[in-house]
């Protein structure tokens, strides 16, 4: 195949001594070190690269940057497959393998192209007008298959990503001469300065030219200590000048290690931001302006200069701006034949005609020949109202579009800046500065080099000194008319190439009154592709303005939403993947439990033993065995995650009275009491045990899940409402391990293990706390019980928890004790009818609903949430109240989540089962339920519904076991 390489000096970025092999749709091709995939494909004379989104039209390389709408490929296969990569941004590597997107079986012969054949049936928004009968779901699957572009990988990403925070006084986005000049000036003025550019070379549009000034500025910037990040694309500007940027670190495709650091997310806090993002070239509209071989003029110039690639042999330039002539000259110099410049404007710039170049003013391209590669075009004068296919035939294999320039105002707009329309050059430019951000250079509409350099320098210096930035000397882009399409009935003139939005579609939107720029975008999908309309947005709205006789400024632009260019999800998540997504906590004695047969499960953010099954034993069976053993002998449980707080201060007692439903101020030192914590709405948020350690010193146990919540609530009330109370709240959860010993033989066990006699049940009563010690290790022993048995919660410094477990376990056999997990504990507390906040309550449960009505009446003092308990809804006798349930047949389980109703569904809900289990003690299923008016319904029979099955149950009083509560006393 003919090579399209040009001889030196063309191709400054390529290394002709380093050929690279790659495959395109399975075809082995060769390029050079320094190529992008696009330049390599063009060098191999590959014109047909991809297929468009809707009509599957053949498309080729269109641009030379991130604005590329057409040449998209899937890179690599397997876990590293990366969809929708722009060929114009993909750096060529040895062994790179890519496939065209959105075509089947292949890009050359694509069945999807059938849609192109019936394009006339598929105008903008056609799907809103049909596929309604019998139902959209009938058509949807095939349409989904036709839509989409690349294919998502199916395996987890083997590569990783990191996030870095940085800050600076002045952040410059863009590495062109304006950006470099601004950065140099800022640094010279003493500002901590950073410069980001998505490119691999400094100099922006001049990067590939031998431009001494640009290179000089680049050197100066480094010498001045500016922190320069190459290959780092700033994609978003967020609140308080946070600039998010993504740095590419690894090659895309080719041979790579098993896992690499692929991209780095930069989060940069900048006092002031300078946008120097340059401009995009704007294409012209003419019939079949999407054919492979039609491309942006500036792109062809860059492919020649930077990559030494001729995008064609004979080029026709369709112009609407002065920039076309510079392009023509350069391309001619690098050896392309310029057939003619077809200038839409009635007169071409002075002198251009004289230069020997053929110029046809006041003319347009009326037809393009060639479906998969341009073969020629027809051009005609505008005057006579040309019709499609009319005019002079020009043979060419390349048609270049030079429609003028569009400043990249994205960051300015993201920062909340306004835009104004400059009609002379037909472009939107920033209207002054945006909050925290100033634009310089092309993205500010400043195109004359000297003016841009002077302005950028002044801006850099001003921002560094905290002064106001000088206004931008907009101009220098030359004349350019608003783009309009070729009049008359023609074949499609594409505005948005990726989404196949044509001028005709825009006209349809206007006709149907989707005239707001947002409606235009949403109805036609113009600018909604992966290129985000970089080369189509302006044309679309200018066209809409013309069709509805409004000035472009009046039509306005759509909001520029971040990101500026698509960003890898992995980069945004950074390290927050797999186990680092959210911390999972382990018990101090985790290893000990693991070595003693614990079956771990995740409860909240803790890994905890659910049970300690014997070989071949199920979780349920283990829980039954463990619970039974604790009831009759003893058991050992790890309660370390229980929340623990120490309160200190003269007002600690008063404060706790305000926080809890129970009264804590009347506790004697060493005494403990159960407490229910409410929020201001009166609903239960936590419960726990409060013990008095001293006159102004309390110990508070919260639930595991409630530890953080309770601390936050205490602090908020103390700091925000009860500011006169002198109380210090110190979280000590992690300091203390909790080794819980329960069961009738608990004390015998502890005694045998060397605990002091003062802890014996007769000298230390239930619900008391003692400070003790064992071999010099301080202990806080709490006589409390969530099992209903004699119980000791031994709190000790967490590092000693394993040792205490081991020490007790040595003598477990003597008392026939077991290790028990959460499941057994749940069974036992259920048998006792003890409340489990979060299971038997939800965000609507009030203390009165779970049996604390009397306790509240008894309490005189006010407490948080109390007032809410006297609202009408809180006093409703039909509220859901916690009761016990037993199946009438004594066998059928009552599942958690089962609902109580008078008959099979649909039916009015009377309540639901909140806790359930098979009682080891009673050997029958028992349950707790929230039941409407439940406390008045003891003895009543109710129907319990669960997934299609009704079970009859009877409402009973709790506790189910040991109603007198004697066992806790040992």
């Amino acid at each position, binding site marked *: 195949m003919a090579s399209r390489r040009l001889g030196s000096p063309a191709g400054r970025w390529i290394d002709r001594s380093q050929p690279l092999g790659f495959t395109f749709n399975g075809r082995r091709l060769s390029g050079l070190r320094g190529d992008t995939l696009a330049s390599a494909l063009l060098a191999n004379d590959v014109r047909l690269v991809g297929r468009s989104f809707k009509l599957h039209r053949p498309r080729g390389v269109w641009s030379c940057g991130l604005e590329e709408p057409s040449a998209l490929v899937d890179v690599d296969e397997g876990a590293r497959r990366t969809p929708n990569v722009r060929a114009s941004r993909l750096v060529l590597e040895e062994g790179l393998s890519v496939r065209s997107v959105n075509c089947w079986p292949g890009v050359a012969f694509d069945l999807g192209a059938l849609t192109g054949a019936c394009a006339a049936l598929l105008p903008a928004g056609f799907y809103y007008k049909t596929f309604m009968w019998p139902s959209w779901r009938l058509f949807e699957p095939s349409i989904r298959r036709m839509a989409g572009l690349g294919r998502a990988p199916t395996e987890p990403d083997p590569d990783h990503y990191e996030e870095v925070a940085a800050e600076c006084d002045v952040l410059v986005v863009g590495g062109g001469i304006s950006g470099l000049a601004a950065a140099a000036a800022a640094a010279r003025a003493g500002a901590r300065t950073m410069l980001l550019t998505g490119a691999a070379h400094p100099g922006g549009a001049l990067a590939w030219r031998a431009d001494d000034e640009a290179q000089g500025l680049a050197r100066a910037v480094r010498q001045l200590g500016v922190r320069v990040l190459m290959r780092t694309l700033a994609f978003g500007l967020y609140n*308080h000048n946070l600039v998010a940027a993504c740095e590419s670190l690894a090659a895309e495709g080719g041979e790579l290690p098993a896992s690499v650091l692929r991209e780095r997310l930069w989060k940069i806090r900048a006092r002031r931001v300078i946008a120097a993002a340059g401009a995009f070239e704007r294409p012209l509209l003419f019939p079949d302006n999407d054919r492979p071989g039609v491309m942006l003029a500036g792109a062809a110039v860059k492919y020649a200069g930077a990559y030494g690639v001729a995008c064609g042999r004979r080029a026709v330039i369709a112009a609407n701006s002065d920039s076309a002539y510079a392009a023509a000259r350069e391309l001619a110099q690098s050896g392309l034949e310029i057939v003619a410049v077809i200038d839409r404007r009635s007169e071409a710039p002075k002198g251009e005609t004289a230069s020997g170049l053929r110029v046809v003013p006041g003319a347009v391209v009326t037809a393009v020949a060639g479906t998969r590669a341009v073969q020629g075009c027809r051009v005609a004068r505008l005057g006579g109202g040309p019709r499609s296919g009319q005019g002079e035939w020009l043979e060419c294999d390349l048609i270049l579009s030079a429609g003028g320039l569009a400043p990249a105002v994205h960051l300015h707009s993201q920062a909340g800046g306004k835009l104004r329309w400059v009609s002379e050059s037909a472009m939107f430019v920033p209207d002054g500065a945006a909050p925290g951000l100033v634009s310089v250079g092309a993205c500010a509409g400043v195109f004359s080099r000297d003016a841009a350099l002077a302005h950028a320098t002044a801006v850099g210096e001003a921002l560094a000194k905290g002064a106001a930035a000088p206004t931008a000397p907009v101009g220098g882009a030359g004349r350019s008319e608003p783009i309009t399409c070729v009049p008359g009935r023609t074949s499609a003139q594409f505005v948005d190439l990726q989404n196949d939005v044509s001028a005709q579609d825009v006209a349809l939107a206007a006709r149907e009154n989707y005239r707001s720029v947002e409606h235009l975008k949403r109805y036609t999908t113009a600018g909604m592709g992966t290129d985000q309309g970089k080369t189509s947005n302006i044309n679309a709205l200018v066209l809409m303005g013309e069709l509805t006789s409004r000035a472009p400024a009046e039509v306005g632009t759509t909001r520029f939403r971040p990101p500026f260019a698509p960003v890898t999800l992995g980069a945004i998540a950074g390290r927050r993947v797999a186990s680092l997504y959210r911390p999972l906590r382990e018990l101090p004695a985790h290893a000990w439990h693991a070595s003693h047969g614990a079956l771990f499960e995740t409860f909240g953010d803790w890994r905890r033993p659910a049970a300690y099954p014997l070989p071949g034993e199920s979780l349920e069976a283990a829980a039954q065995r463990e619970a039974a053993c604790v009831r009759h002998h003893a058991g050992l449980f790890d309660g370390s995650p229980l929340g623990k707080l120490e309160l200190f201060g003269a007002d600690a007692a008063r404060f706790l009275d305000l926080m809890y439903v129970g009264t804590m101020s009347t506790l004697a030192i060493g005494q403990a009491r159960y407490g229910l914590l409410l929020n*201001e709405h009166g609903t239960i948020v936590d419960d726990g045990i409060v013990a008095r350690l001293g006159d102004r010193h309390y110990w508070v146990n919260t639930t595991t899940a409630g530890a953080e919540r309770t601390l*936050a609530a205490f602090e908020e009330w103390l700091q*925000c409402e009860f500011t006169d109370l002198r109380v210090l709240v110190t979280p000590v959860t992690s300091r203390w391990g909790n080794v819980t010993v329960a069961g009738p033989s608990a004390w015998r066990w502890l005694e045998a293990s060397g605990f002091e006699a003062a802890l014996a049940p007769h000298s230390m009563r239930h619900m008391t706390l003692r400070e003790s010690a064992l071999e010099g290790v301080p202990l806080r022993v709490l006589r409390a019980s969530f099992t209903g048995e004699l119980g000791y919660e031994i709190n000790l410094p967490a590092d000693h928890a394993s040792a205490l477990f081991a020490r007790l376990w040595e003598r477990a056999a003597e008392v026939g004790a077991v290790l028990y997990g959460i499941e057994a504990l749940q069974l036992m507390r259920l048998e006792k009818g003890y409340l489990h906040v979060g299971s038997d309550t939800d965000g609507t449960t009030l203390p009165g609903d779970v049996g604390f009505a009397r306790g509240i009446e008894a309490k005189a003092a006010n407490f948080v949430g109390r007032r*809410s308990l006297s609202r009408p809804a809180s006093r409703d006798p039909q509220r859901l109240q916690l009761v016990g349930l037993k199946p009438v047949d004594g066998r059928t389980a009552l599942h958690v989540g089962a609902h109580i109703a008078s008959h099979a569904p649909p039916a009015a809900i009377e309540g639901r089962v909140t806790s359930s289990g098979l009682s080891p003690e009673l050997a029958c299923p028992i349950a707790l339920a929230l039941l409407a008016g439940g406390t008045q319904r003891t003895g009543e029979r109710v129907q319990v519904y669960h997934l299609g099955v009704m079970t009859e149950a009877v409402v009973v009083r709790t506790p189910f076991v040991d109603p007198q509560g004697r066992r806790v006393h040992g």
Partner: protein
Amino acid sequence: MMQLECPCCGRRDESEFVCAGTTHIARPPPAASDAQWGEYLFFRDNPKGVHLERWRHSYGCGLWFNVARHTVTHEILAVYAMTDPPPLPAVAD
């Protein structure tokens, strides 16, 4: 992501703080009517403009403090102690 000026710790990213909504809401006495209590619990100015609100530096020093913030631009107009009176009125645009 905003940056807030913790009175103790200085400028920190928004992700170190929690916001508890409108501040300076007087807590009615237990004798308050259901209507007064409902107002206190639920009804808010929710201004499109300057909002006086309560933040806690939960990842830092744990301090609760007040902030005057514009709810459209997110501009921070004032940061002041929990017990201080508002330095400026809450105003809507």
